[in-house]
């Protein structure tokens, strides 16, 4: 099971700020990156945090973002990246 995305797909992290235990950091919300790899499926940690079973399992992706896309005034060279593991429900096709 690989879920809706494949390596190389461009994805956007949804920009939303729900309360509660969330595993997607603020700085990456609303940013666009590329699926670097599919990591498999895991019980959803955002549900596990509250004592639920985390099911159905969610697909997890490693998404690669260009630093200059994440931080417009990034001081390093183009090509530097930040790779973030993000669950499918935070991602949309871009």
């Amino acid at each position, binding site marked *: 099971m690989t879920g809706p995305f494949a390596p190389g797909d461009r994805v956007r992290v949804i920009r939303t700020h729900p309360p509660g235990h969330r595993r997607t950091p603020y700085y990456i919300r609303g940013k666009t990156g590329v699926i670097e790899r599919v990591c498999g499926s*895991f019980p959803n940690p955002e549900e596990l945090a509250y004592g639920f079973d985390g099911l159905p399992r969610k697909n997890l992706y490693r998404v690669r973002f260009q630093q200059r896309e994440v931080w417009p005034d990034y001081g390093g*060279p183009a090509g*530097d990246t930040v790779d973030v*593991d993000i669950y499918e429900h935070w991602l949309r096709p871009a």
Partner: protein
Amino acid sequence: MMADERGMQDHTHYHAHGEDHVHDHDRTFQPDIEDSAPGRYELMTYAIRELMEEMGHLTAEELRRAQEKLDSWEPSQGARIVARAWTDPDFRKRLLEDGNAAMAEFGIEPGGAKMTVVENTDTVRNVIVCTLCSCYPRAVLGLPPDWYRSKSYRSRVVIEPRAVLKEFGTEIPADMTVRVHDSLADLRYLVLPRRPAGTEGWSEERLAALVTRDCMVGVADPEVPDTA
């Protein structure tokens, strides 16, 4: 009388070593670990522990053993894995493809975490962080150092990784790519450093001794001791 004698000796002693008298009178003390009040979560931890013991779910002995097991995990485990990857190309391939399976060959069982090994090359430099908390590959590196858990490291390494690496003494040339890996959910990262030059023909054991914790977090490089 005794005090006077000791005072005299101290006096002579300090002069003999050219030390300042100030140290004799104005000592500085390291604060004791109990000096600051426990925080909310620390108190909750104590309360839950006591309740679990009272209700018979856990014994103090079991908790102590679990703590001992945690403390026994140390960076030498990761170092053995790195040294094997340097000397065995097939193992290196397996390690990069499926960290958990390759680490199982060493008897390491990282629980539910997906161990993801990222390789430094002559063009790519990897460094790991958890910006949300302190996710860390404990099964292979043990407990994270304080700096890894500090707000300063967690917030800065993702914004200005090159500046942070420089503070660790690691300067990355502009023609190399820096990849920061933010482990947030179920992945745990281990950096596979580059094997240093001048180690051809070394045994795994000798190589493993070069691989420090910081090398596997990505903030430092293995160095061959200068024995010339």
